[in-house]
């Protein structure tokens, strides 16, 4: 046998060995959209899982967020894509309705696994009574204040308005309170306090209710009558005003913490109780990211086992401490390193009064009309009643077009 021939044979043999070797060891593919610290943390957890289960290889793939959902929608129903993927609950309903994307995992899940999570987390992963994912982390808004301006954070709306009024000097551009109140996501905290909601438990649209209208009126009272909030709110406006020390209190989420300038000494507290709503607390919406098993995965049990590990206390600590995520596993909030962390703790406290954002596919149709309605009211172009009625009509039309009888 001549030399080149031998080399070819050796290379071919190595290649074949590689192919068979790879086929023997189970390989799980995880898709996520994390960057920076979150990405490092999830990769560390994957490595840890590999070391625990001999022979299992976990490949993590970070997908740019903008393309992520479409990539799942396009690849998974056609038998491609990952074994496990991480996404927030807002797209869950749509994927389940169109089918062949998310595997139901209720059958795998035992009682102990269900019980390990913080309250409300499993609700976000449950669609029409069937469990489709393991919750991993949550986000909600809370009260963030400038310690230089606010000594003790207000507990009730009356206290808050009183305090905010004393800190507001509209002429010099100083306000007591700021949040993106025209954005329906931020407004939902107030709407929930009044007992309003978007869908009832049967999925019927109940946006147009006197509770929702009352919550908008409350927001308008803060803005117009009390004058404690700046006009034209937006994400950038809120953060720049807070960083310039021009606003004392904001309602914002964990993503805001990284934007606060180092010169500001900030504190966190729960959103206030609304006296006008019968002393009910504000209840912000929770966005909950979960790990889902792909319906086209060839190794669903192994994938579930890995997803379960992601949701465990051990992985939770890594994801929380290194990835700065608010993990859903209740046990980690007893750990000293977490209890000593002011930020993680504050958002954990807010969880006592929060509720998961609806995971129905129809929710996508709500955002645009609802936010338009809020803007109209704030600009004085419509009464709260008329604006909500119109928005509700528009959403209902889109929903009817989707839910066609057979």
């Amino acid at each position, binding site marked *: 046998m001549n030399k080149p021939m031998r080399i070819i044979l050796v290379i071919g043999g190595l290649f074949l060995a590689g192919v068979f070797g790879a086929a023997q060891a189970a390989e799980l593919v995880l898709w996520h959209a994390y960057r920076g610290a979150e990405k490092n943390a999830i990769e560390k957890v994957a490595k840890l899982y590999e070391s625990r289960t001999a022979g299992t290889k976990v490949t993590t793939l970070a997908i740019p967020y903008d393309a992520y959902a479409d990539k799942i929608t396009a690849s998974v129903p056609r038998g491609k894509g990952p074994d496990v993927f991480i996404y927030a609950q807002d797209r869950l309903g749509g994927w389940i309705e169109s089918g062949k994307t998310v595997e139901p995992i209720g*059958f795998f899940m035992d009682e102990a696994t269900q019980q390990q999570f913080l309250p409300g987390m499993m609700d976000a992963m449950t669609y029409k009574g069937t469990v489709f994912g393991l919750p991993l982390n949550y986000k909600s808004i809370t009260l963030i204040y400038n310690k230089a301006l606010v000594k003790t954070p207000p507990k009730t709306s009356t206290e808050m308005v009183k305090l905010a009024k004393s800190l507001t000097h509209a002429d010099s551009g100083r306000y007591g309170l700021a949040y993106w109140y025209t954005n329906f996501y931020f407004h939902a905290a107030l709407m929930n306090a009044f007992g309003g909601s978007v869908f009832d438990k*049967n999925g019927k649209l109940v946006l147009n209710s006197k509770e929702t209208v009352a919550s908008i009126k409350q927001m308008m009272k803060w803005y117009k009558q009390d004058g404690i909030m700046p006009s*034209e709110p937006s994400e*950038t406006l809120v953060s720049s005003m807070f960083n310039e020390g021009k606003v004392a209190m904001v309602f914002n989420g964990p993503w805001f913490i990284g934007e606060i300038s180092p010169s500001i000494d900030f504190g966190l507290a729960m959103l206030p109780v609304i006296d006008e709503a019968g002393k009910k607390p504000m209840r912000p919406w929770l966005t909950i990211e979960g790990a889902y098993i792909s319906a086209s995965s060839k190794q669903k049990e192994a994938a579930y086992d890995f997803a379960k590990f992601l949701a465990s206390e051990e992985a939770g600590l890594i994801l929380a401490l290194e990835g700065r995520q608010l993990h859903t596993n209740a046990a980690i909030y007893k750990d000293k390193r977490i209890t000593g962390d002011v930020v993680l703790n504050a958002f954990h406290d807010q969880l006592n009064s929060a509720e998961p954002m609806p995971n129905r*596919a129809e929710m996508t149709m709500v955002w645009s009309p609802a936010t*338009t309605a809020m803007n109209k009211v704030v600009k004085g172009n419509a009464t709260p009643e008329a604006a909500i009625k119109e928005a509700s009509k528009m959403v209902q039309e889109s929903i009817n077009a989707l839910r*066609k009888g*057979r």
Partner: protein
Amino acid sequence: MTISEHLKRSALPGMAVAMLFALVLGSWLFGAEMADLHLQHRQRLAVLQANALVLAVADTDAAGTRKRVGEMQKLEPRIESVIIVAGPQLLASTRPGDGAPRQLKREEKPLYDLSNLIRTARETNRGEEVVRKKTIQIDEMPSGRLVVTLPYLSGGEFAGILQMQFDGSGYPRAAGDTFPFPILLLIAALLAGAALRMQTQKKVDPAKLIALVAFLLIVLFYQQQQIGRLEQVVKQDNRAIATQYLASAEQLDRLGYLPLLRDPAGVNHWDTDDYERPRGVIAADGSIAEEAETKQLARRAGFIRPILWAIDLFAVAVLLFFLYGYAGRAYAAFREHIYAYIYVAPAMIGMLVLVFFPFSYGITLAFTDTTLFNESLPFLDRLIGWGNFKAILGDFNIYQDTAEGIIWNYQNFYWTLMVTVVWTITNVVIGVSFGFILAMVLNTEGLRGKAIYRVLLILPWAIPNYITALVWRGMFHPQFGVINQVLQMFGLEPVAWFDGVISSFLTGVATNGWLSFPFMMVVILGALQSIPKEMYEAAEVEGASRWQRLRHITLPLLKPTLIPAIVLSVVWTFNMFNIIFLVSGGEPSGANEILVTKAYKIAFEQYQYAYAAAYSTVIFMILLVYGFFQTRITKATESF
């Protein structure tokens, strides 16, 4: 006589191709319908038994359920096995060695999931008060077995699923296909075609007319006859199922379960569709409800007829293509330039896969009612015809005349069309005039630093428009945007750009103007430099003023370059998705949406895929009509 001459003279080839076309498509359609009827027949028989089982065990406990299921299975040998799953438990099973009741095994997860799926489907149908989810699932096995899964009820409440394996083989097929019949028709058509000689010169030619009439007569006769056959099969099936129903009922009567199964109101709950709704064709006493049957037939015919019309129309088009000699000419051209066709073939195949396939898929989708919620249904179940186009073009709710003045309905198609047209015209006018002025300036003789200016002016075009759009969006920010900052510097009030219909429109126009003038400038500059200087010199000698030189030399000589550029830029601007989507996002309230961004939002925010496809098709039609005018205009300018 050469082939191409033959193609021109004889009606035979045309008749043959068109008739083959109509018959092949027709027999495919009727074959599919017949197969569907056959399938439905088998499925109805299985569902009949499955429903009887569910009704018989509805009022008893687990032990009673096992007993009754066992008894009923013995009566009907075609029921091979029955299992009942309640939550994570296998409640009852007639499969040997299954040992029910027991927990489901690991590999039986699909049963658990199916149970949840059917429960959810029932709850969804009830909760939304719209029946849209199947609650009876039928799986066909390759062996001819049917697996029917349906809700198992206990005390009127959903308690789990009942799955029955049914031997569906051995049912007589509907009367065999009359195979020679279409062949006979084809021969008749060929004979008619062979008998006819056409005169190529004459526009009105009796031979062509006769060919057309003969063709239509044969095709319509064939289709009518086939529809008749389908109706006959539907009627036969109904009677066969009624007979089976009576036979099974009689057997159950002996077990003493029949009172449970008979509905006092006379509704037959055995023969249901996949949504558990009684079909109503067979009454509780086994008689046929004529009225319901007529409706059933009309529904099926109503589905087939439009497809037949489409086939007929297409076949006639093919026939005329041949009769009027286009086929002959096409063939002659093909023979003459055979190498050219071979050379373009790879490109054409690429086009076919990358352009025509997605394109025709989009158009087909427009005739369905596909949404996120029903995209998994079979294609034919989603077909609805012209409904989407009627909804888009037939909605004239453009404005409301209220006491406070006119309120425009920004969601309406015609409003969006109007915005799109205004958007296109404004942008092209701005692009051309700025481009023209700058090109004139750059064309000045002896201008120093010309190269630098040129590079600077082309820059907006070179930067990806995605980035430019986001930069402009930032500049229009009401609070921090540079434009409002400048306004405030001059003591003016800041403008909330995205809140007003006009101001929001202007943000898009400004951005797109910025992006579009460099292209026009480059095109015009190139054309200007190709105008011979002597012409201007001669005009100057003759005493022509600057304006006259512009009007009578520059503009006419620019026209041949300018018009194609304008035509192109109209199409680009009409579909300028990026700028609208990224800068104003159609604000306020979707008033500044153009047609493409609107179509995008319908598809990906409201999940109405088919409606969005119809919307896109309408956009395509508009551009197609524009394209026809464009070719006319371009032709008209070619003489310059």
